[in-house]
Protein backbone atom coordinates (compact mmCIF):
# COMPACT_ATOMS: atom_id res chain seq x y z
CA UNK A 1 0.00 0.00 0.00
CA UNK A 2 1.81 3.14 -1.20
CA UNK A 3 -0.45 5.89 -0.02
CA UNK A 4 -2.38 6.63 3.15
CA UNK A 5 -5.83 5.25 3.80
CA UNK A 6 -8.62 7.71 4.53
CA UNK A 7 -11.02 7.03 7.37
CA UNK A 8 -14.14 9.19 7.27
CA UNK A 9 -16.19 9.49 10.45
CA UNK A 10 -14.48 9.37 13.86
CA UNK A 11 -17.24 7.71 15.87
CA UNK A 12 -16.95 4.31 17.53
CA UNK A 13 -16.33 2.45 14.25
CA UNK A 14 -14.12 5.04 12.56
CA UNK A 15 -11.88 5.26 15.61
CA UNK A 16 -11.58 1.47 15.68
CA UNK A 17 -10.78 1.26 11.96
CA UNK A 18 -8.20 4.07 12.21
CA UNK A 19 -6.50 2.44 15.18
CA UNK A 20 -6.50 -1.00 13.55
CA UNK A 21 -4.96 0.42 10.35
CA UNK A 22 -2.34 2.45 12.24
CA UNK A 23 -1.32 -0.38 14.55
CA UNK A 24 -0.73 -2.59 11.49
CA UNK A 25 1.63 -0.01 9.97
CA UNK A 26 -0.67 2.02 7.69
CA UNK A 27 -0.62 5.79 7.42
CA UNK A 28 -4.14 7.05 8.15
CA UNK A 29 -5.99 10.30 7.49
CA UNK A 30 -8.93 10.46 9.90
CA UNK A 31 -11.65 12.93 8.97
CA UNK A 32 -14.71 14.27 10.75
CA UNK A 33 -16.76 17.47 10.90
CA UNK A 34 -15.09 19.23 13.86
CA UNK A 35 -11.73 19.51 15.65
CA UNK A 36 -13.49 18.70 18.93
CA UNK A 37 -14.63 15.29 17.62
CA UNK A 38 -11.13 14.59 16.30
CA UNK A 39 -9.50 15.53 19.62
CA UNK A 40 -11.90 13.16 21.35
CA UNK A 41 -11.04 10.46 18.80
CA UNK A 42 -7.32 10.81 19.50
CA UNK A 43 -7.97 10.55 23.23
CA UNK A 44 -10.08 7.43 22.68
CA UNK A 45 -7.40 5.82 20.50
CA UNK A 46 -4.73 6.59 23.10
CA UNK A 47 -6.84 5.02 25.80
CA UNK A 48 -7.76 1.97 23.71
CA UNK A 49 -4.08 1.42 22.88
CA UNK A 50 -3.23 1.55 26.59
CA UNK A 51 -5.93 -1.03 27.31
CA UNK A 52 -5.05 -3.27 24.37
CA UNK A 53 -3.20 -5.94 26.32
CA UNK A 54 -5.85 -5.94 29.02
CA UNK A 55 -8.49 -6.89 26.47
CA UNK A 56 -6.42 -9.66 24.89
CA UNK A 57 -4.77 -7.57 22.15
CA UNK A 58 -1.10 -6.91 21.36
CA UNK A 59 1.02 -4.49 23.40
CA UNK A 60 0.73 -1.10 21.69
CA UNK A 61 2.66 2.13 22.05
CA UNK A 62 -0.09 4.80 21.94
CA UNK A 63 2.36 7.46 20.67
CA UNK A 64 3.56 5.25 17.81
CA UNK A 65 -0.02 4.41 16.78
CA UNK A 66 -1.15 8.05 16.96
CA UNK A 67 1.95 9.18 15.02
CA UNK A 68 0.55 7.33 11.97
CA UNK A 69 -2.83 9.06 12.21
CA UNK A 70 -3.32 12.54 10.76
CA UNK A 71 -6.63 14.16 11.67
CA UNK A 72 -8.44 16.75 9.58
CA UNK A 73 -11.81 18.43 9.08
CA UNK A 74 -13.56 18.03 5.72
CA UNK A 75 -13.52 15.61 2.79
CA UNK A 76 -10.75 17.41 0.91
CA UNK A 77 -8.19 15.93 3.37
CA UNK A 78 -8.67 12.49 1.79
CA UNK A 79 -8.34 13.74 -1.82
CA UNK A 80 -5.07 11.85 -2.40
CA UNK A 81 -5.64 8.54 -0.63
CA UNK A 82 -5.90 5.09 -2.29
CA UNK A 83 -8.80 3.84 -0.26
CA UNK A 84 -11.43 5.62 1.84
CA UNK A 85 -13.16 3.68 4.60
CA UNK A 86 -16.36 5.57 5.36
CA UNK A 87 -17.92 5.11 8.82
CA UNK A 88 -20.50 7.87 9.20
CA UNK A 89 -23.82 7.32 10.92
CA UNK A 90 -26.27 4.73 9.51
CA UNK A 91 -28.57 7.37 8.11
CA UNK A 92 -29.10 7.54 4.37
CA UNK A 93 -29.34 11.33 4.14
CA UNK A 94 -26.05 11.70 5.99
CA UNK A 95 -24.30 9.01 3.94
CA UNK A 96 -25.58 10.45 0.67
CA UNK A 97 -24.19 13.90 1.48
CA UNK A 98 -20.83 12.43 2.48
CA UNK A 99 -20.51 10.36 -0.72
CA UNK A 100 -21.33 13.34 -2.90
CA UNK A 101 -18.48 15.22 -1.21
CA UNK A 102 -16.06 12.28 -1.37
CA UNK A 103 -16.84 11.59 -5.04
CA UNK A 104 -16.03 15.20 -5.89
CA UNK A 105 -12.88 15.32 -3.73
CA UNK A 106 -11.17 12.01 -4.57
CA UNK A 107 -9.42 10.81 -7.71
CA UNK A 108 -11.27 8.37 -10.00
CA UNK A 109 -9.20 5.35 -8.88
CA UNK A 110 -9.88 5.76 -5.17
CA UNK A 111 -11.84 2.88 -3.70
CA UNK A 112 -14.74 3.70 -1.39
CA UNK A 113 -15.25 1.13 1.35
CA UNK A 114 -18.70 1.56 2.86
CA UNK A 115 -18.60 0.44 6.49
CA UNK A 116 -22.24 -0.24 7.11
CA UNK A 117 -24.30 -2.78 8.93
CA UNK A 118 -27.40 -2.34 6.81
CA UNK A 119 -27.34 0.13 3.90
CA UNK A 120 -27.22 -1.56 0.45
CA UNK A 121 -23.86 -1.08 -1.26
CA UNK A 122 -25.34 -0.73 -4.74
CA UNK A 123 -27.50 2.13 -3.49
CA UNK A 124 -24.39 3.94 -2.22
CA UNK A 125 -22.54 3.20 -5.48
CA UNK A 126 -25.41 4.68 -7.49
CA UNK A 127 -24.80 8.20 -6.19
CA UNK A 128 -21.10 8.13 -7.16
CA UNK A 129 -19.45 8.25 -10.58
CA UNK A 130 -17.35 5.16 -9.67
CA UNK A 131 -19.74 2.26 -8.96
CA UNK A 132 -16.98 -0.26 -9.85
CA UNK A 133 -14.85 1.18 -7.01
CA UNK A 134 -17.47 0.96 -4.27
CA UNK A 135 -17.60 -2.03 -1.93
CA UNK A 136 -19.10 -2.76 1.47
CA UNK A 137 -17.23 -3.99 4.51
CA UNK A 138 -19.12 -4.56 7.71
CA UNK A 139 -16.52 -4.18 10.45
CA UNK A 140 -17.40 -5.53 13.89
CA UNK A 141 -16.87 -3.67 17.16
CA UNK A 142 -14.32 -3.40 18.74
CA UNK A 143 -12.61 -3.34 15.33
CA UNK A 144 -9.00 -4.17 16.36
CA UNK A 145 -10.15 -7.22 18.34
CA UNK A 146 -12.33 -8.88 15.70
CA UNK A 147 -10.72 -11.35 13.29
CA UNK A 148 -13.33 -11.27 10.50
CA UNK A 149 -15.67 -8.94 8.60
CA UNK A 150 -18.52 -9.29 6.13
CA UNK A 151 -17.34 -8.14 2.69
CA UNK A 152 -20.11 -7.09 0.32
CA UNK A 153 -19.53 -6.40 -3.38
CA UNK A 154 -22.32 -4.38 -5.02
CA UNK A 155 -23.77 -5.13 -8.45
CA UNK A 156 -21.06 -3.13 -10.26
CA UNK A 157 -18.08 -3.73 -7.94
CA UNK A 158 -15.00 -4.79 -9.96
CA UNK A 159 -12.70 -7.73 -9.23
CA UNK A 160 -9.85 -5.25 -8.83
CA UNK A 161 -11.76 -3.41 -6.11
CA UNK A 162 -12.48 -6.70 -4.34
CA UNK A 163 -8.78 -7.63 -4.45
CA UNK A 164 -7.58 -4.21 -3.24
CA UNK A 165 -10.05 -4.38 -0.38
CA UNK A 166 -9.12 -7.94 0.50
CA UNK A 167 -5.43 -6.95 0.55
CA UNK A 168 -6.14 -4.05 2.93
CA UNK A 169 -8.23 -6.27 5.20
CA UNK A 170 -5.59 -8.97 5.20
CA UNK A 171 -2.94 -6.41 6.17
CA UNK A 172 -5.23 -5.35 9.03
CA UNK A 173 -5.35 -8.95 10.24
CA UNK A 174 -8.91 -9.53 9.05
CA UNK A 175 -10.46 -12.38 7.12
CA UNK A 176 -13.22 -11.32 4.70
CA UNK A 177 -16.40 -13.40 4.60
CA UNK A 178 -18.12 -12.56 1.29
CA UNK A 179 -21.89 -12.09 1.40
CA UNK A 180 -24.37 -10.75 -1.14
CA UNK A 181 -25.68 -7.20 -1.11
CA UNK A 182 -28.98 -7.58 0.73
CA UNK A 183 -29.93 -5.02 3.37
CA UNK A 184 -28.58 -6.09 6.77
CA UNK A 185 -26.39 -8.75 5.11
CA UNK A 186 -26.21 -11.87 7.29
CA UNK A 187 -25.22 -10.39 10.62
CA UNK A 188 -27.77 -7.66 11.08
CA UNK A 189 -30.77 -9.40 9.59
CA UNK A 190 -30.46 -11.67 12.63
CA UNK A 191 -28.77 -9.51 15.26
CA UNK A 192 -30.92 -6.38 14.91
CA UNK A 193 -34.16 -8.34 15.14
CA UNK A 194 -32.79 -10.13 18.21
CA UNK A 195 -31.81 -6.87 19.93
CA UNK A 196 -35.12 -5.25 18.92
CA UNK A 197 -37.11 -8.18 20.33
CA UNK A 198 -35.00 -8.14 23.51
CA UNK A 199 -35.84 -4.43 23.88
CA UNK A 200 -39.56 -5.30 23.51
CA UNK A 201 -39.20 -7.82 26.36
CA UNK A 202 -37.83 -5.06 28.62
CA UNK A 203 -40.44 -2.59 27.30
CA UNK A 204 -43.26 -5.02 28.11
CA UNK A 205 -41.81 -5.91 31.51
CA UNK A 206 -41.31 -9.59 30.69
CA UNK A 207 -37.75 -9.34 32.06
CA UNK A 208 -35.30 -6.60 32.89
CA UNK A 209 -32.14 -6.10 30.81
CA UNK A 210 -30.00 -8.12 33.20
CA UNK A 211 -32.53 -10.98 33.08
CA UNK A 212 -32.66 -11.03 29.28
CA UNK A 213 -28.87 -11.05 29.01
CA UNK A 214 -28.54 -13.69 31.74
CA UNK A 215 -30.68 -16.08 29.66
CA UNK A 216 -28.42 -15.63 26.62
CA UNK A 217 -25.19 -15.95 28.60
CA UNK A 218 -26.15 -18.70 31.01
CA UNK A 219 -28.52 -20.80 28.89
CA UNK A 220 -27.06 -20.31 25.40
CA UNK A 221 -23.40 -19.78 26.31
CA UNK A 222 -23.21 -16.43 24.49
CA UNK A 223 -20.29 -14.33 25.81
CA UNK A 224 -22.59 -11.27 25.92
CA UNK A 225 -26.38 -10.89 25.98
CA UNK A 226 -28.21 -8.89 23.27
CA UNK A 227 -28.73 -5.80 25.41
CA UNK A 228 -25.09 -5.63 26.57
CA UNK A 229 -24.29 -5.92 22.89
CA UNK A 230 -26.72 -3.07 22.15
CA UNK A 231 -24.91 -0.89 24.72
CA UNK A 232 -21.59 -1.75 23.07
CA UNK A 233 -22.82 -1.01 19.53
CA UNK A 234 -24.81 2.06 20.59
CA UNK A 235 -28.57 2.11 21.18
CA UNK A 236 -28.94 4.92 18.61
CA UNK A 237 -27.10 2.85 16.00
CA UNK A 238 -29.37 -0.12 16.75
CA UNK A 239 -32.44 2.08 16.21
CA UNK A 240 -31.11 3.47 12.91
CA UNK A 241 -30.24 -0.02 11.69
CA UNK A 242 -33.69 -1.38 12.53
CA UNK A 243 -35.26 1.64 10.78
CA UNK A 244 -33.15 0.99 7.68
CA UNK A 245 -34.29 -2.67 7.62
CA UNK A 246 -37.91 -1.53 8.06
CA UNK A 247 -37.62 0.96 5.19
CA UNK A 248 -35.76 -1.40 2.85
CA UNK A 249 -37.98 -4.46 3.24
CA UNK A 250 -41.28 -2.65 4.02
CA UNK A 251 -41.89 -5.52 6.40
CA UNK A 252 -43.51 -4.89 9.78
CA UNK A 253 -41.38 -7.53 11.45
CA UNK A 254 -38.66 -4.84 11.55
CA UNK A 255 -40.78 -2.25 13.40
CA UNK A 256 -38.49 -0.55 15.97
CA UNK A 257 -39.31 -0.99 19.65
CA UNK A 258 -40.54 2.34 21.13
CA UNK A 259 -38.06 1.89 24.00
CA UNK A 260 -35.18 2.21 21.51
CA UNK A 261 -36.65 5.51 20.28
CA UNK A 262 -37.11 6.80 23.81
CA UNK A 263 -33.56 5.85 24.85
CA UNK A 264 -32.10 7.39 21.69
CA UNK A 265 -33.97 10.66 22.31
CA UNK A 266 -32.87 10.64 25.96
CA UNK A 267 -29.20 10.22 25.08
CA UNK A 268 -29.07 6.76 26.70
CA UNK A 269 -26.90 5.38 23.89
CA UNK A 270 -24.93 2.80 25.89
CA UNK A 271 -21.25 2.68 26.77
CA UNK A 272 -20.35 5.72 24.69
CA UNK A 273 -22.67 8.02 26.67
CA UNK A 274 -22.18 6.28 30.02
CA UNK A 275 -25.65 4.80 30.18
CA UNK A 276 -27.90 2.63 28.06
CA UNK A 277 -29.57 -0.56 29.20
CA UNK A 278 -26.88 -0.52 31.91
CA UNK A 279 -25.25 2.30 33.84
CA UNK A 280 -21.49 2.68 33.24
CA UNK A 281 -21.04 5.64 35.58
CA UNK A 282 -20.11 3.40 38.51
CA UNK A 283 -22.54 5.00 40.97
CA UNK A 284 -25.21 2.36 40.70
CA UNK A 285 -26.48 -0.28 38.40
CA UNK A 286 -29.60 1.50 37.23
CA UNK A 287 -30.98 -0.63 34.48
CA UNK A 288 -33.85 0.22 32.20
Amino acid at each position, binding site marked *: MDRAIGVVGAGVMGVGVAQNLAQTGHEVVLVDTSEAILAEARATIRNNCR*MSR*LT*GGPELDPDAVLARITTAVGASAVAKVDIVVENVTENWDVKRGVYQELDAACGPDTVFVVNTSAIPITQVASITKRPANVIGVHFMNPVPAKPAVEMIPGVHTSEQTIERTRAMLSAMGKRAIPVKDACGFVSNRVLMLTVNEAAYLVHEGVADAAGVDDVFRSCFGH*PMGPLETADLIGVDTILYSVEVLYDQYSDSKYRPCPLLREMTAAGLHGRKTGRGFYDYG*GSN*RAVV
Partner: protein
Amino acid sequence: MAENVKDQILGFLESRFPDVEIPETEDIFQLGFVNSLFAMELVMFIEKTFGVTIPNDELRLDNFRTVKSMAELVDRRTALAETAEV
Protein backbone atom coordinates in the same frame (compact mmCIF):
# COMPACT_ATOMS: atom_id res chain seq x y z
CA MET B 1 -3.22 -1.61 53.01
CA ALA B 2 -5.95 0.97 53.38
CA GLU B 3 -9.23 -0.82 54.05
CA ASN B 4 -11.24 2.00 52.48
CA VAL B 5 -9.55 1.36 49.12
CA LYS B 6 -10.77 -2.23 49.25
CA ASP B 7 -14.20 -1.08 50.39
CA GLN B 8 -14.54 1.38 47.54
CA ILE B 9 -13.50 -1.22 44.95
CA LEU B 10 -15.86 -3.73 46.48
CA GLY B 11 -18.60 -1.10 46.49
CA PHE B 12 -18.09 -0.53 42.78
CA LEU B 13 -18.26 -4.26 42.03
CA GLU B 14 -21.34 -4.69 44.21
CA SER B 15 -23.10 -1.78 42.53
CA ARG B 16 -22.57 -3.47 39.17
CA PHE B 17 -23.28 -7.01 40.36
CA PRO B 18 -25.66 -6.69 43.32
CA ASP B 19 -26.64 -10.35 43.35
CA VAL B 20 -23.09 -11.69 43.66
CA GLU B 21 -21.01 -12.18 46.78
CA ILE B 22 -17.41 -11.24 45.94
CA PRO B 23 -14.69 -12.28 48.43
CA GLU B 24 -11.62 -10.05 48.16
CA THR B 25 -9.39 -12.84 46.88
CA GLU B 26 -11.91 -14.24 44.37
CA ASP B 27 -10.83 -14.01 40.70
CA ILE B 28 -13.70 -11.99 39.23
CA PHE B 29 -12.83 -13.06 35.69
CA GLN B 30 -13.18 -16.72 36.75
CA LEU B 31 -16.71 -16.04 38.04
CA GLY B 32 -17.81 -15.96 34.43
CA PHE B 33 -20.00 -12.85 34.37
CA VAL B 34 -17.44 -10.17 33.51
CA ASN B 35 -15.40 -9.92 30.33
CA SER B 36 -12.30 -8.02 29.30
CA LEU B 37 -14.38 -4.91 28.52
CA PHE B 38 -15.20 -4.75 32.20
CA ALA B 39 -11.45 -4.67 32.90
CA MET B 40 -11.38 -1.35 31.01
CA GLU B 41 -14.17 -0.04 33.23
CA LEU B 42 -12.18 -1.08 36.29
CA VAL B 43 -9.15 0.86 35.06
CA MET B 44 -11.28 3.97 34.49
CA PHE B 45 -12.94 3.60 37.89
CA ILE B 46 -9.64 3.17 39.74
CA GLU B 47 -7.89 6.05 37.97
CA LYS B 48 -10.85 8.39 38.58
CA THR B 49 -11.64 7.37 42.15
CA PHE B 50 -8.11 7.24 43.54
CA GLY B 51 -6.55 9.95 41.35
CA VAL B 52 -3.79 7.66 40.08
CA THR B 53 -2.50 6.95 36.60
CA ILE B 54 -1.82 3.31 35.89
CA PRO B 55 1.25 2.99 33.63
CA ASN B 56 1.27 0.61 30.68
CA ASP B 57 3.39 -2.05 32.39
CA GLU B 58 0.81 -2.29 35.20
CA LEU B 59 -2.13 -2.68 32.79
CA ARG B 60 -2.13 -6.46 33.11
CA LEU B 61 -5.23 -8.55 33.72
CA ASP B 62 -3.53 -10.08 36.79
CA ASN B 63 -3.65 -6.70 38.53
CA PHE B 64 -7.44 -6.60 38.17
CA ARG B 65 -8.39 -10.18 38.99
CA THR B 66 -9.20 -9.69 42.66
CA VAL B 67 -10.21 -6.87 44.99
CA LYS B 68 -6.95 -7.51 46.84
CA SER B 69 -4.76 -7.20 43.73
CA MET B 70 -6.53 -4.00 42.69
CA ALA B 71 -6.09 -2.49 46.17
CA GLU B 72 -2.39 -3.43 46.10
CA LEU B 73 -2.07 -1.73 42.73
CA VAL B 74 -3.68 1.45 44.11
CA ASP B 75 -1.33 1.34 47.12
CA ARG B 76 1.71 1.01 44.86
CA ARG B 77 0.65 3.91 42.67
CA THR B 78 -0.32 6.12 45.63
CA ALA B 79 3.00 5.43 47.38
CA LEU B 80 4.92 6.33 44.22
CA ALA B 81 2.92 9.54 43.78
CA GLU B 82 3.62 10.55 47.40
CA THR B 83 7.34 9.83 47.01
CA ALA B 84 7.39 11.98 43.89
CA GLU B 85 5.80 14.89 45.76
CA VAL B 86 8.34 14.89 48.63
